[in-house]
């Protein structure tokens, strides 16, 4: 569960609020698109959710953690409940595709046996079988993206966040990735999914909840797709 209640945040050294008295809630098991122009604060919302930056005021709760009062030592526990697919993938360059996914399981203390069973399964799920031994620079942009997806879902997080995951993909691949996210959302664990995107077509081809933001504020929130945001 994600709860923003009147949250404001200014970057250190920034002159304006990147997030300005923002309120919205995402329930467990929901699938939400987050849309908005460049610089509107989408990535900032993700950084707030993962505890990478702190809110200046308001109330912020994620998966049962009170992020306004969380101690630094508790951040790893929070982050293990969240899987993030970053705008720029953020893969570790000198680890193979396999290790990039496996190390996320080592982080949470999974046993070697679990890892050997789970990683190939997840890599297969995102269509990366046969690429295990390659390094990130030796696979295509779309494949790197899917490594990032595999890493984000390998620990079965409660909340899956994707920041512009389709930025580098052709429309067919984008749709495929969205269907994969939808499947992850639909699974028996009911993973909550938050997808940041610019792609109108894509958003409109799914009838999901769309939260639109501009200048750090929510300007529309509903099931009626991307268009309502454009009208504003």
């Amino acid at each position, binding site marked *: 569960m994600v709860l923003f209640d009147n949250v404001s945040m200014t970057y250190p050294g920034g002159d304006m609020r990147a997030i300005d008295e923002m309120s919205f809630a995402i329930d467990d098991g929901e699938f939400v698109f987050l849309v908005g122009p460049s610089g509107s604060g989408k990535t900032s919302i993700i950084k707030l959710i993962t505890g*990478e930056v702190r809110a200046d005021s308001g109330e912020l709760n994620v998966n049962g953690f009170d992020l306004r009062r969380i101690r630094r030592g508790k951040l790893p526990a929070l982050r293990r409940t969240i899987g993030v697919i970053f705008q720029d993938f*953020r893969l570790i360059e000198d680890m193979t595709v396999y290790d990039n996914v496996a190390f996320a399981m080592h982080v949470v203390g999974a046993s070697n046996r679990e890892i050997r069973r789970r990683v190939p399964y997840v890599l297969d799920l995102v269509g990366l079988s046969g690429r295990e031994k390659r390094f990130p620079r030796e696979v295509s942009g779309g494949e790197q993206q899917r490594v990032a997806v595999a890493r984000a879902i390998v620990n079965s997080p409660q909340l899956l966040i994707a920041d512009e995951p389709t930025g580098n993909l052709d429309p067919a691949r984008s749709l495929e990735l969205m269907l994969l996210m939808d499947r992850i959302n639909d699974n028996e664990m009911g993973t909550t999914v938050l997808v940041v995107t610019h792609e109108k077509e894509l958003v409109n081809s799914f009838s999901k909840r769309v939260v639109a933001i501009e200048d750090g504020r929510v300007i529309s929130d509903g099931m009626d797709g991307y268009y309502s945001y454009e009208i504003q």
Partner: protein
Amino acid sequence: MKSSKIGYLIKEGFKSIGTHGFMSFASVTIIIACLVIMGSFTLIAVNIDSMLDSLEAENQVVAYVEETFSEEEARALQPEIEYISNVRLCRFVPREEAMEEFASQFENQALFQDVDASVLRDRYIIYLNDISLMEQTQEELYNIIGVANVDAHLGVAEGFVAVRNVVSAVSLILVVVLVVVSVFIMANTVKLATLSRREEIAIMKMVGASNWFIRFPFIVEGLVLGLLGAIIAFLLEWSVYDVVTNRIIAGVIGRLVSVIPFSQLSPIVLPVYLGVGLAVGVFGSTIAIRNYLQV
């Protein structure tokens, strides 16, 4: 922590040494250079110190006994002289023996051959513990009834003290300067090494890694590099020391001074090198990543 996790982290540490080959090489080289340079200066100072020790030990004070004292009476002074705390050793030399010695020095000069021993005095050859206290000891010898005169080379004693002070001061300054310089170089090398891994650390944190999970491989890496550097530096120091001291022993100076064999120094040098290598390796890597862990 589970053992499988520790195993993984140790493996990651070793892997990282290979992946960051150039930086590993640079760190080890710097550790070696610092250890060898500092070690060499220290060993030179230790050797000079020991040479001074042996030269000092040769330095003797002669106390002459009153002419009126019989040999018996003169011999009786020995315990009184030995009672002075700075006296390490004293040897009684009766006037006849002194005469023989004297005569043998001037063998060819007939003038001295038949001089009667009674013109000389019985004497004590005295060796001191600490020659910087020579003047004080001289006073104490004068205070003994029966001691007529004391021959002490106060100037020589002062010279030794001065040389020793200069040597200790110079080596202390050099070691301090070298420590500062090498810590600075080391810190920068490690900083450079970790700069490239800043992103990697940030990613690990985002996936939920604890600080210990991130730090552990770095510490393993620092430990291994530090140990490696220490061992190589020790072997290098050993061979350099052997080559240099063999030259000295074979050369002219070798007849004047003695050098301490490395086998006698290694029980101290090896643990110090290992300790410094480990400390630099572990602290270097811990300090260098500290800032990146605050995400």
